[in-house]
């Protein structure tokens, strides 16, 4: 259901069925059920890359109103060896890689063979009504010479137009 830009009415304007349906019915339906992309049980990624790589393949949302997109990703990460590494999580939005810069939106120390949860919340700038592409990305930075792989399990990833 598309969003229709609200029109200011003047005194004496006749509210026709077309205006009512477009301005009231369709917009209420849009507000109740905005475009959403909801993913769960996503494939895990094991990586040792010190440069950002895709955690999973492209996720798209078709926005209808030219609004912002609220993103949430949550899951956990395992360091598979002893020592300490730092996990960085970042985003690609519409082909622009690593929008949070080198440090990423989430930085997580992983110690020993431990498991740590992560949550990422992100709100985009205003996007045009079209299909938009988001990707979660990760890199692993060794601390004090420690190398090793990290397994990232994303349990939920969703996008919602707001």
């Amino acid at each position, binding site marked *: 259901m598309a969003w229709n830009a609200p029109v200011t009415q003047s005194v004496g304007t006749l509210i026709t069925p077309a205006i009512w349906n477009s301005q009231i019915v369709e917009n209420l339906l849009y507000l109740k059920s905005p475009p959403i992309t909801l993913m769960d049980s996503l494939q895990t990624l094991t*990586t*040792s*890359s*010190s*440069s950002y790589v895709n955690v999973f393949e492209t996720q798209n949302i078709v926005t209808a109103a030219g609004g912002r997109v609220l993103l949430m990703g949550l899951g956990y990460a395992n360091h598979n*060896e*002893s*020592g300490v590494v730092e996990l960085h999580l970042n985003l690609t939005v519409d082909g622009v890689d690593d929008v949070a810069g080198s440090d990423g939106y989430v930085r997580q120390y992983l110690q020993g063979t431990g498991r740590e949860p992560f949550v990422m919340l992100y709100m985009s700038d205003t996007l045009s009504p079209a299909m938009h592409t988001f990707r979660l990305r990760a890199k692993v930075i060794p601390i004090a010479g420690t190398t090793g*792989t990290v397994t990232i399990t994303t349990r939920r990833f969703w996008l919602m137009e707001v």
Partner: protein
Amino acid sequence: MQTLEFPLPEAANVSALDRAMRARFGDRISGISVAGDVLMVHVLEPQDDDEDAALDVLAAHDPDALTPEQAARKTADDAPARAAAIPGWATWDEAETVAWIEDNVRDLESAKQVLIDMARLLVALRDAQWPGLAIEAERVTKK
């Protein structure tokens, strides 16, 4: 960055593969990734023979060969069983330990046996407490 993709061997030790790829490519790769049954090698400075080089590493891969870190973790995991196998030391309290030494240490040979048991316990404790200590010591020595 160029990402080369290969089928992941059925029995793969991803950490060991990472170590082997780094040994082969040096700083030209940022690392490797595995998603499902696909192995990705992330090459920062691509060269023509990179695919062949990665295939060489895959062909030589032994999934049973542990990295030093994996071997240290296995040793740490085994430590409680090794400590439990030292007669008496898993269950004695302080008084029982002192009493046992007073009753049994009579000469150099019996003292040596107690020292050996204590050394075994110390090594098990060290392995459990600091599984990466030997790797760290080697790194410091190299510096």
